[in-house]
């Protein structure tokens, strides 16, 4: 019985560690899907300024992309958020003026959050598969 109890304890500890690892990796993959895009979800990621006055030729980055952050992961209740006022307009493709929304960059696109939500199950399945390989 002692050996069996030990095995159960070991299994529980391993399962708990696996669960924690999967959780952390899922949060990371979800954040990455929204910000950089992901083939798992089909999210294009945030658009990055490339051209025109005010942009920085040759630089990869941008205020919108940098505005995304993740917090609370240590509490088991992670929150992915942005402080950019342009995030909602870009997410839904809503123009600031009358007329169609126009994206001035070839990097990233719209609906990154929505596509990540739609593909969240795939993210979880992918991370579980990696952890249990």
């Amino acid at each position: 019985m002692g050996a069996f109890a030990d095995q159960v304890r070991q299994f529980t500890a391993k399962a708990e560690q696996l669960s924690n690892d999967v959780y952390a990796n899922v949060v990371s993959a979800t954040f990455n899907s929204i910000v950089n895009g992901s083939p798992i979800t089909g999210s294009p990621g945030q658009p990055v300024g490339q051209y025109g006055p005010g942009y920085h030729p040759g630089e990869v980055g941008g205020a919108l992309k940098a505005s995304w952050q993740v917090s609370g992961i240590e509490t088991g209740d992670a929150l992915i958020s942005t402080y950019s006022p342009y995030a909602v307009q870009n997410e839904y493709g809503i123009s600031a003026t009358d007329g169609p929304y126009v994206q001035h960059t070839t990097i990233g696109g719209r609906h990154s959050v929505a596509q990540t939500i739609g593909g969240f199950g795939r993210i979880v399945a992918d991370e579980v598969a990696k952890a249990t390989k």
Partner: protein
Amino acid sequence: MISHLANTLALRNRALSVVVATTGSATLAATATGFTRATGSFLTDGFSVGMDVVTSGFTNAANNGNGVVVGVTATTLTVSMYVVTITNGAQSVTRPATVIEASASGRTIAAKLPSMRAFENVDLIPAAGIPYVEEDYAPATHTLIAGPRQGGIAEETGLYMLKLYGPTNVGVGALRKLADALAALFAGGTILTSGAGAVRIRGDVAPVPAQILPQGNGWSVLPLSVYWLANSSNTIAA
């Protein structure tokens, strides 16, 4: 691989079938500012300020067509009619008043998908105070989920988004009722014919109407996200 054209049209036609509010065939009169009735209720029928409506069955042509609801009581529907004309690529909007017409049966007023529509790759010039809708079709993933490679099952997923624009500062009724009616048409598990195949509305991520977002330019927008998936036979070209 599925036909994304057929998919787009299947989802669009579903949206086009929405009826948000209707009098049905009713006994209605026309006034200089809209329409009235002696029996039944415009409120009970579901009309709200800011709704885009279509009127029909009136004798005078000026009383048939498109309008925007600007006032609602049980027996009076105040409507601002409009006519959008595009000549040589230039859009003009006229707002003719309704014409007094005595009560008669066989007339209908219905709120459906706004008549001003910016479907995929179609530009639209919004007209002040007239609701409109934008459509986004965004494929997401394409996965071979069951073998063999040739002839196996490929699953594609994506997002169909309708952005519902209405005049700002008229309350939530018009946009929320339109979004709710559309969400009901795209309930999880709904299967639509798409070309030679079918597209299914996902049940694990059901349609999600977002928050109403005032834009500060006279418009408020309510995005509605519809998640779909479709299967096809995987074909590897020679």
